[in-house]
């Protein structure tokens, strides 16, 4: 995969209904990284992820990716330019239910990039194969299992050729025996050198696959480092307390 620029977020602040959910977050993702963000529900990790691709605006701080820099709360054109570099995978898949799997994959390339259907399919079909859904092109989302849907959603995001993939609790809505098929796809992408940022509660995945763990609490990044350090020898007492639940 072509060398992607480094994603840098500085001092991100965000207030929701008078409550500050991001209190000055610094965050960095260099190319080919697989970063897992962990923390309690409500710590701001999902908001951070959504700020990165502009689904959520931030009040203060800056976000830069290569030559593009987004500052302050709102700039629609820039947000869209920035967003073109990111693929997003949601907890509830959010496939388009009125389109079949192939239709889901070709929609954005055709609508946004103006590709013809054959051009878009040329991109989509290998992606379906990559996520193990070759036989499912003509199936509708409602006909498939959660694991299959989430893999289709990953393929749909990849069809726009993003440089960074963002995952917002991608396996939380799945039955336990379906979790691995999704993680396997993410492992495969990691091996190909894709930059991936994952918000998840699955510590096994975080431990085994992540290159870096970011621990957040109450709107700030408390501690970050390699899994072994964060899980094995956390320094900050807040990290210690959080990790103690996972002590093997």
């Amino acid at each position, binding site marked *: 995969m072509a060398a992607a620029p480094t994603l840098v977020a500085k001092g991100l602040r965000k207030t929701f209904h008078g409550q500050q959910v991001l209190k000055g977050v610094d965050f960095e993702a260099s190319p080919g990284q697989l970063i897992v963000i962990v923390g309690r529900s409500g710590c701001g990790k999902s908001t951070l992820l959504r700020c990165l691709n502009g689904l959520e605006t931030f009040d203060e701080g800056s976000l830069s990716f290569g030559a593009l820099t987004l500052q302050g709360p709102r700039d629609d054109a820039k947000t869209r330019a920035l967003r073109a570099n990111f693929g997003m995978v*949601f907890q509830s898949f*959010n496939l*388009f*239910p009125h389109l079949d799997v192939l239709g889901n994959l070709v929609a*954005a390339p055709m609508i946004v990039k103006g590709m013809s259907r054959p051009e878009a399919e040329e991109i989509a079909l290998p992606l379906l194969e990559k996520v193990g859904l070759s036989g499912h092109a003509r199936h*509708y989302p409602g006909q*498939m*299992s959660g694991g299959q849907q989430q893999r289709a959603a990953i393929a*749909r995001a990849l069809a726009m050729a993003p440089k960074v993939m963002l995952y917002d609790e991608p396996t939380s809505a799945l039955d336990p025996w379906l979790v691995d098929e999704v993680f396997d796809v993410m492992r495969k992408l990691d091996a190909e050198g894709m930059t991936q940022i994952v918000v998840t509660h699955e510590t096994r995945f975080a431990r085994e696959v992540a290159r870096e763990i970011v621990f957040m609490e109450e709107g700030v990044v408390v501690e970050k480092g390699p899994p072994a350090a964060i899980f094995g020898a956390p320094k900050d007492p807040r990290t210690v307390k959080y990790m103690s639940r996972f002590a093997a």
Partner: protein
Amino acid sequence: MRLSPLLLLACALSAHAAPAKTLRWGGDSSGGAPFVFQDPKNPAKTVGFEADLAAALAAELGLEPVFVQNQWDSLVPGLKRGDYDVVINGLEITEERKAEVAFSDPYYLTYEAMTVPKKSFDIASLADLKGRRAGTLKGALAERLLGDAGGVTVVGYDTQTMLYDDLANGRIDAVLMDHPAAVYYGIDARLKNLPGQFGRMAYGVAVRKNDAKLLAHVNEALARLMKAGKLREIYERWGIWNPVMAASFTDTSGNHAEPTEYANYLAARGVKLGWRAQLAKYMGYVPLLAKGAVTTVELSLLAMSLAVLMGLILALMKLYGPAPVALMAGIYVEFIRGSPLLIQLFFIFYGLPTIGIKLQPFTAAVLGLAINYSAYEAEVYRAGIQAIPHAQMEAALALGMTRWQALRHIIIPQALRVVLPPTTNDFIALLKDSSLVSVITMVELTRVYGMLAASTYDYLGIGVLTALMYVLIGLPFVRLSRWAEARLAVEKRPRIS
């Protein structure tokens, strides 16, 4: 090829334009005999002494007579709008009307006559009506006479048939109507005409005030017809020549005609038919009803297409527009939804011309229905769009789509399935509401029913036939909607694992 609704509208309009070299005369053929009505034996034909007069006048003027149907109490506004050149339909020459339109010399002189139930013996004069219910046509001179009598409950009707039917059925105590009407309707076995003559009135041909040339021509033609005895002949054939006219018209011809039309009318009325003949009679009405049905369908399809388009735009304005735009859309919806369709139709058809916007009846009908229904559609689509989870919008945005692209390709197609049943519902409702456009001179299915029923006294049989036609028109659209709904229900397909 995609046909825009506006293009279709334009095509439909050109088909409704009137040819040149004609005398377009307005009247209400559901008003009843002997003025202007549908021939009971051949319902496609408009007959009556005024139809004969219009034909005679047109012949004198070297023009082709073309009948334009309009509701009786809207005949003057329709004339002012220019929907026809003259009104020839029992329009009494009054000071109020003279302020609005110009009248020719009188072509018919008459008086009001009172009709009461056969068993009624205590009504002989207007004064006897005190404390009772008396009926007449809406807007007729008799309405004022009854009002002036004091203490009379005046009941206004749209058609003579209904008026005299209600008297026979005992819903009113007396009818005060122009003498010709009494001649034709008071002969019911359950009714009797009283001998008294009330008031004096003259019918005139109404012409627009700025049409002085036409008025002069009409007056000359009338004078020639009178002198030649043609006018008297028409009235005698219809059995409505009276002494008032004999004294006033300068008819020196000495002609006398037999009341053949009156006899025909009585014969048609009195006939009792077997079920076969009855069935054949109803089959005879079908072509005329079908013609009305075609207008109803044209009108409804065009109006609904426009309403859907406007409704969608309004819904998007309300949901995604900046605050002032959303507010405007909201006010439009509440205002249009909150006021009666009938008033909107009158406003568009008779109101707008006063500020210079004059629409053809068909255009006005389509627009009126479309504007009214767009408000309902807007709310249906707003709800439909809101029923699609916000996550769908986010997913589309995350893939790089603009908000509009997401709406057009992701949200609206999904909302379509949600709104299909309520939209079909609204279409069926519009199909039936389209009957209201008969108030703006459109002859559609319900108006045809009114005209046929008024001339044949058959509100029951023709009513059933008409209702059946509405159902039959609606059914294919219901089936189409079900089919589309099933096709769109992709998420209901069986799971593969």
